[in-house]
Structures are given as C-alpha cells and as structure tokens.
C-alpha cells in the first residue's frame, strides 16, 4: 500500500484529507507543521506528501526545500494543498520541487484527479 503524509496545521483538514486518501487506497500519516513532517520523512520516506503552505514553525515551501535535499528526498511526489492561489506562488512551489498543486477549497474529486495527474494512482 502506498503511503501519504498529510501535512496541515488544521486538524479538520487533515481529517478530511485522510478520509479522501484512504478511500483511494493510501495509508496515511499526519504532521501539523514542516518540522514534524521532516521528522516523519527522516524516519520513513512516504510515497506522497499532501502539503499545506502556511503553517507555524516551518511552512510548506521551507519543508519542501529541506525535503528535496534529504537522502531519498527526491522520491516522494509532493502535492501542495493551500489557499495560496496566486500564479507566482504556484510557480515558486513548482520551482521548489512540487509535482502538483491544489488550491483550497478542494473536494475528493480534485484530490483524486490531481493524484492521478501526478502519477500516484
């Protein structure tokens, strides 16, 4: 079973995303900020990361830059999931190594479609 790390400081969003991703066959781990997410990745690199942008301690883009420099950190497919919807922000995320990008609000169809687009399904 593929694993997906859901990184978001909102418990509600993590719960919604968990339900959607479990339905399409992922095993889920959760982290509430970038530091926690990085610790998860160092312990066990996931196949996918669903990543919020604005979080305390370490935000999504900083986490992504760190992740891509870790041993094995090129592996996970990273899908941003954020309210940031300016084109400059999306470009910055892609330049930092994101594979796909979801603008909130999202629903199950959008997540499934974007994960398929990123080659995860």
């Amino acid at each position, binding site marked *: 079973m593929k694993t997906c790390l859901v990184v978001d400081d909102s418990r509600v969003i993590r719960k919604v995303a968990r339900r959607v991703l479990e339905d399409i066959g992922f095993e889920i781990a959760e982290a509430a900020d970038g530091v926690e997410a990085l610790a998860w990745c160092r312990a066990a690199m996931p196949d996918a990361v669903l990543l919020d942008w604005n979080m305390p301690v370490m935000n999504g883009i900083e986490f992504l830059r760190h992740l891509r420099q870790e041993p094995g950190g090129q592996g996970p497919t990273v899908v941003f999931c954020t309210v940031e919807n300016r084109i400059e922000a*999306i470009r910055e995320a892609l330049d930092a190594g994101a594979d*796909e*990008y979801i603008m909130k609000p999202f629903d199950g169809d959008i997540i499934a479609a974007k994960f398929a687009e990123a080659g995860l399904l």
Partner: protein
Amino acid sequence: MTPEDMDLLAALARQRAGLRIESDKAYLVESRLNPLARREGFESIEAMIAALRAHREDRLIWAVVEALTLNETAFFRDREVFAHLRDELLPSLSRLGRDRPIRIWSAACSTGQEVYSLAMTAAEGRDIAPAARFEFFGSDLSDRCLEKAQSGLYTQFEVQRGLPIRLLVKHFENQDEMWAITPRIRQAVRWRRINLLADLSSMGKFDVILLRNVLPGLDPAVHGRVIESLAARLEDDGVLLVGSGESLEGVTSAVQAIAGPSGLFTRAAA
C-alpha cells in the same frame, strides 16, 4: 411541471436540436430551466411554459432549447485521448508538410474546455513539426456557453478539473477571482453558434472533428444524420472522435473505426 409540460419541452428540444429529454428527468429539466425563467422575468418555470404555449415565440423557444443542452465538460477530459492527440495524431498531421493549416473542430464545445485543451496540446506536443499551423474551431448550440468559452475565464474549481498545474501556470493568468486563458491560446480559436441538425456544408473541411460525449444527449433517431453530416466535413484522411465507449455500431456506415483509443473513426471507403 405537468407531464404535458414535459412532453412539450421534449418535443421542442427534439424537433429543434435533436436533443433527447427523458420524461422521467423532470428534476434535471427544472434545474436547467430555473435560471432561464428567472432571467426572462417569469415567476416560475410553469409561467414560462404557459407563455411558450400561448405565443410560440421563436426567441423564447430557442432560449429554452439551449438551456436544455448538456454542458458538462472538463479540461483534458479522458487523458488517454489527449495523450494520443499529442503523441500520435497531431504529430503525424503536422509532418505531412501541407501548405495549409491543420483544421480542428470541437463540434459541441460547451464552455470551451475541450477546444482550449486541444490548442494547449498543439502548443505542447514535442513531436509536432514547428512549422505546422493549426486552426481551431469551437461551436455549440448555446450562445451562453459560447460567450463563456470566448471569454476564456474559468473558476478555480473549473481549472482544477483535468488541467495539469504546469499547463495552468503556462497558459493562464490570475484575473480577480477567476483564471484567464492567455491571449495566445484564446486567439487561436474561432467560435460559431451551430445547430448540428442544420446544413453544415458551408463549414469547409477538417482534419479532426470532435463530437465527444454529445451523442448520449441526442435522440438516437438523429445519430446517423449527425455523424454522416460531420463525416462529410472530414478531409479524406480526417479523423472523427466520439466519446470513449460511445458506439456507432448500426448507426451509420459512413465511418469506420480506426486503431488507437476507443472512439476514433475515419470516413468509410466509398
């Protein structure tokens, strides 16, 4: 709405545009007509239908028929079809080195996502000869759909249905709360209101015609006529695409299936 109201609507939709309206789908019809009744200043759908019966005014009849069309669509709907267009069909057309543009027609384009996806595909295909020129056409029965298509403005929800993020970044710009397709792609498409039951002979010839996910909304009695009239608009080696899983078995002998993903046809040898 009474069963008689439904019968009247179904008959008008069938006669004018060949649409298939199932009599048990009153809720669907109501959801499509509600906004129109409001726009036209009627108190209810029933009041609008009463006016329709009383005056048979052509403009209102067409407004009703147009509102009854299906406009479900998405960017890059059926990814394998677009992969085939990008990697096989458009490159092979582009390498024929003709001194005329390659002409592509989305024959019931709804709000434009399909034809814009084609224009983006032609801009992206790595194997497409750089000298090739493309002309894209989008047509629909509904003026309201065409207006939206022509504006090139889509909601955040719409651009997240089927559009890869790299193509969003490359071919769209933020415009207030909407996403605007870039002028380069928007200006590559010509638009026209077309009823597929009408005489299409003034349309010229096309290398590719798309009629995907349209037949299921049309009365089976007009399928043969519509396919034949589109087949007559194909260049000798032109390709007609219908939706995957839509069969033309027994519909007409004017076209024959060809290799590739399901839904590809070419004109049958005379």
